[in-house]
């Protein structure tokens, strides 16, 4: 057994709140055709800070009529401007946007943490730098598409309708916008209902960048707004990131149409730890895998599969490490786990915590003081779960880890591949040949070996099976936004 870490000292972290001022308007409209406009029926909704439950701003709630205006604006911009612009010039706009995001990075990071609840350390060091990098990467593709698809000419779809989730609000906007624009599409983007602010601030930045009006349109709202976009025949392509349940609804809606789609859906990734792994590093990887961004991560390592011979040690080390995690103010630079994104999500997670105990699993949460206001969930693990338990099969989207053991590599692979998802996986071992064997057997789109939750604009990301279709990032991330024409047959 290991010696527990000793944190029982009088030494405490002093609060270290981020102090960069941000400029937020009291209310935000829809960004359509390069202009700010109210929703036609005047409806609005509030976006709140999940760490304080205070209202941050009122935001326009787009109806089907507003979505129609946005799609038409995007079509006009496509027909009149964007499709006629030389590709290199398209790219220069994207380079410009990337640079302006870098200039205002800290401001965006603070707003992201205020609106979504994620720790400032993550929005500052992960989300926003990746946003800028993503625009910078795809900017360079704009005039090089002839080299991307051998034997084919890449042509844009036209208008892309894009719907993004609340877990990485601005990063998902960048993942959607950058490749769509680089390949010559115009866009109608719908941010998530609980996290619209950074996308709206991006709209301001896009105005500052002089992007032609209508090339990017941003419509805020909830599920109805998203459905209006999916059902709009003028959106030639639909790109969605979100739950598998909604993804299936979108597939059914699009089935009778010839419109193109790509989906990035849920996951229930297995993080597989072999007995020959560097266990301390593996524990860090497990923590990063499931507690990064409060576990609001589709590729989260929400299942730990640990080899039986080291299970006791790993779980002990993990509990020990969990006790050191700081849950609290997202704007404090020391915070490890911020606020749960919304009350709705908090309830969902609480439901799973109760369910886990009802299913007979054993719950562990370190003792930690939670703020009185806001939505919080301490880091949680469950042991004693079975393969058929809902804790093992279903995506929770919270800081909740289900731990199972295995004896042989074959058993690990079988358990890893059992749920219908296939987004990501982790493998921890010091043996190179085992890494290749296991990572090729796990049916998932992203495999992290001796690391976890790493992202890069050059690295394609996306799922197998019920985790979706299509890739975002890298050369492969261009494909969802182009039609491939055969020069000999077109």
């Amino acid at each position, binding site marked *: 057994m290991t010696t527990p870490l000793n944190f029982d000292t009088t030494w405490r972290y002093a609060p270290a709140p981020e102090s960069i001022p941000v400029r937020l308007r009291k209310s935000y409209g829809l960004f359509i055709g390069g202009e700010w406009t109210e929703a036609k029926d005047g409806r609005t909704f509030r976006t709140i800070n999940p760490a304080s439950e205070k209202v941050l701003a009122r935001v326009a709630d787009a109806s089907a009529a507003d979505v129609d205006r946005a799609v038409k604006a995007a079509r006009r911009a496509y027909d009149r401007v964007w499709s006629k612009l030389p590709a290199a010039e398209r790219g220069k706009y994207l380079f410009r946007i990337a640079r302006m995001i870098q200039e205002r990075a800290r401001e965006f990071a603070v707003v992201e943490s205020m609106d979504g609840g994620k720790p400032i350390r993550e929005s500052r060091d992960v989300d926003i730098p990746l946003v800028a990098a993503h625009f910078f990467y795809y900017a360079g593709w704009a005039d090089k598409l002839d080299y991307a698809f051998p034997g084919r000419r890449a042509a844009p779809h036209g208008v892309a309708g894009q719907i993004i989730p609340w877990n990485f609000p601005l990063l998902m906007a960048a993942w959607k916008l950058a490749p769509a624009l680089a390949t010559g599409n115009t866009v109608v983007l719908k941010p998530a209902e609980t996290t619209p602010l950074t996308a709206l601030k991006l709209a301001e930045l896009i105005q500052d960048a002089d992007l032609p009006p209508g090339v990017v349109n941003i419509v805020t709202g909830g599920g109805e707004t998203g459905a209006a976009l999916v059902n709009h025949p003028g959106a030639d392509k639909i790109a969605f990131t979100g739950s598998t349940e909604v993804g299936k609804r979108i597939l059914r809606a699009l089935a009778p149409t010839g419109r193109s789609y790509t989906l990035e859906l849920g996951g229930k990734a297995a993080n597989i730890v072999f007995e020959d792994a560097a266990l301390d590093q593996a524990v860090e990887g497990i923590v990063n895998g499931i507690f990064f961004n409060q576990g609001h991560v589709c590729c989260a390592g929400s299942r730990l599969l640990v080899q039986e011979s080291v299970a006791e040690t790993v779980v002990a080390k993990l509990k020990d490490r969990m006790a050191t995690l700081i849950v609290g103010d997202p704007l404090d630079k020391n915070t490890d786990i911020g606020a749960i994104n919304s009350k709705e999500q908090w309830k969902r997670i609480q439901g799973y915590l109760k369910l886990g105990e009802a299913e007979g699993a054993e719950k562990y949460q370190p003792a930690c003081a939670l703020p009185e206001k806001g939505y919080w969930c301490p880091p949680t693990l469950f042991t004693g779960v079975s393969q058929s338990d809902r804790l093992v099969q279903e995506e929770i989207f919270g800081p909740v880890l289900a731990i199972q053991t295995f004896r042989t590599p074959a058993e690990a692979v079988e358990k890893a591949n059992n749920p*219908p998802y296939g987004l990501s996986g982790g493998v921890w071992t010091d043996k190179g040949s085992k890494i290749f064997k296991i*990572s090729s057997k796990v049916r998932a789109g*992203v495999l992290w070996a001796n*690391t976890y939750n*790493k992202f*890069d604009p*050059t690295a394609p990301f996306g799922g197998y*099976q019920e985790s979706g279709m299509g890739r975002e990032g890298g050369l492969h991330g261009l494909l969802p936004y182009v039609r491939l024409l055969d020069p000999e047959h077109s």
Partner: protein
Amino acid sequence: MSSSRIPVLKTYKLYIGGAFPRTESGRYLPFAAPSGRVLANICHASRKDARDAVKAARAAFPGWSGASAYLRGQILYRLAEMLEARAEAFAAELKAQGQPLPAARKEVQAAVDLLVHYAGWTDKVQQVFSSVNPVASSHFNFSMQEPTGVVAAVAPDRPGLGGLVGLLAPALAGGNTVVAAASETFPLTAITLAEAIHSSDVPGGAVNILTGVRNELLAPLAAHMDVNAVVYAAEDGAAWAEARVQAAENVKRMIRRAPAAPPSPYAILDTLETKTTWHPVGV
């Protein structure tokens, strides 16, 4: 004496799991030549046959997807050899089903050439579509392709041979296993193709071929939770739309293809998944 010899007619059955069973349903469809003469009672495959075929395809998947690309290439090439050797028989059978002989001969040659073409892709498609990704952190990062899994293929009415081969070859080249619903206009050719496949070292279950009514087979295949993709080259738009609704349940890849699409590595790519692997670089 020779004039009184009774020819031996062939029984056309299904091809499932490397065997030639009759449909479990006992149903048959009389299949007539353009002259009206019944050529065969073909199997009217059932939903249960479709499920059995999926089971066989799934069982064959680890072996076929795990075979080296070189071996898969050689086996597809071997299938081309088998077709070439039986070219006249295929042409005659196409003719019996209504295809003029010169066109039938051309079609068989085209099918052989298509197989040779795809045989050569098995060990190149990965090189064309994979990538090493220059991530901005100290990781080695690469993306490569893996087969989607079990692919359901719905053949067009015509070309009678090329239509089916054009669906099977790219899916197999990529390492998938296949359940195919045959042309309703040239069903005999599909089963004769199965015989050629059976003698080509294609492992049992890697290809399964069903005859009958395609729309009756499309529905259970599109709804089947263990089918990963459907490639559709028939021309019933309404049936295809309905299949896409059914297929949403397990997020199948739904691929529509022209009946006589020219060969392309992108047809292989349609039935592949891209996997990105990360590993830290360090000592």
